[in-house]
């Protein structure tokens, strides 16, 4: 046991010094001595994250969660690794788990985790948006291709039926009009990049100026991002607006606002780093 702790301490020192491969090796040795210490897994996961070994980091987090299912760090690192591997749903799920564990234990990392959750939401939206744009433009090409094939077919048939040049021109123009119209329909469906990209004030935390992930309401009826207001109340137990006394324990989640913010971000992911 003492041996494993000693290896861990040395690993931590190496990690601090930025020597991640050595830190990882030391945590591995410690795990051989004591495979039941959850911290050794999260520490190694952290070293592996630094070395961009996402899958190995995920394996460590999962081992840790087997031993200690409510390990905040394991969920946080898992979320980071999934995000790096573009597994956005998993990233968000574990990010939110880490967030709720932070809230439960009044963990000091709440601010960092809140920022991370926003990042997950933003990247997930970016990805969906990219896919949506690609799919729409593929569909457009396909539909236009079908129309052009149909036009050529009709023209060939007209030629076979000995239609004169004037008649064939008419057919061609008619099809060009159809194709133009189809393109117009797709154009209209494209969201304008300059469409008012404005974040409504109700979604913004007045302390961090970010869209809220976990809004909590004070006695005065004003809502803030939990991470921001908690940080303030730790130093000064006063309502930011009225200066009345206010304690962290008096904050209540604002569930309806949370839902509204979630829905807003769902449709306007760009706002996550507005």
């Amino acid at each position, binding site marked *: 046991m003492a041996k494993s702790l000693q290896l861990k301490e040395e690993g931590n020192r190496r990690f601090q010094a930025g020597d991640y491969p050595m830190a990882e090796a030391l945590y591995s040795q410690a795990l051989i001595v004591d495979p039941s210490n959850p911290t050794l897994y999260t520490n190694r996961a952290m070293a592996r994250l630094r070395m961009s070994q996402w899958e190995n980091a995920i394996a460590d987090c999962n081992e840790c969660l087997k031993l200690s299912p409510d390990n905040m760090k394991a969920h946080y690192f898992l979320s980071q690794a999934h995000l790096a591997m573009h597994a956005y749903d998993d990233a968000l799920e574990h990010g939110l788990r880490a967030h709720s564990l932070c809230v439960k234990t009044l963990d000091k990392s709440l*601010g*960092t985790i809140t*920022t991370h959750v926003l990042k997950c939401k933003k990247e997930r939206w970016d990805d969906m948006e990219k896919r949506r744009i690609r799919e729409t433009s593929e569909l457009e090409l396909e539909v236009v291709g079908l129309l052009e094939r149909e036009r050529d077919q009709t023209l060939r048939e007209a030629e076979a039926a000995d239609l004169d040049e004037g008649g064939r021109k008419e057919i061609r123009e008619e099809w060009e009009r159809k194709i133009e119209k189809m393109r117009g329909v797709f154009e209209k469906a494209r969201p304008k990049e300059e469409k008012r990209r404005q974040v409504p004030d109700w979604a913004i935390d*007045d*302390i*961090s*100026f*970010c869209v809220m992930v976990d809004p909590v309401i004070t006695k005065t009826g004003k809502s803030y991002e939990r*991470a*921001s207001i908690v*940080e*303030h109340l730790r*130093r*000064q137990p*006063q309502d*930011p*607006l009225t*200066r009345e006394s206010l304690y962290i324990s008096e904050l209540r989640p604002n569930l309806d606002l949370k839902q509204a913010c979630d829905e807003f971000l769902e449709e306007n992911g760009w706002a996550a780093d*507005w």
Partner: protein
Amino acid sequence: MSTQFAAKRLSKELSKISSSLPPGIELVSADNFEEWLLDIRVLDNNPLYQNQTYRLKFRFGSSYPIEPPEVVFVKLPDRPIPMHPHIYSNGIICLDLLGQQGWSPVQNVESVCMSLQSMLTGNSKNERPPGDEEFVRGNRLRPKDIEFYYHDNDV
């Protein structure tokens, strides 16, 4: 919280004040998230401050806006230090809003400028704080480390 927190919030404040600021407040420079310069003017006819522009220097720590910014008036050839019983002649301002106790994280650069504008507007005394000369000569502290005694909050 991290430095990133302050930078993020300041970048949002900056984008907001770059596009619009209330009358009498102007952004002079904001090249980084540590120090910004703004000019303020008093808008009414208070004879103490008429036709004058004053330069403010904001310094932000990594805990902004949880911690207040450090705000002082800066003296330049065309930017005097406004005469006020709460403003020392070296530019240090005694305002509870800027102290640890009076600050609130919902305040921002714009609201601080507006508070200072109205602090000047409402003043009619053509004088410095008591002990100004001595304070200016002896003070080596940063504004945030000075324990001001807010003796007359009604000025």
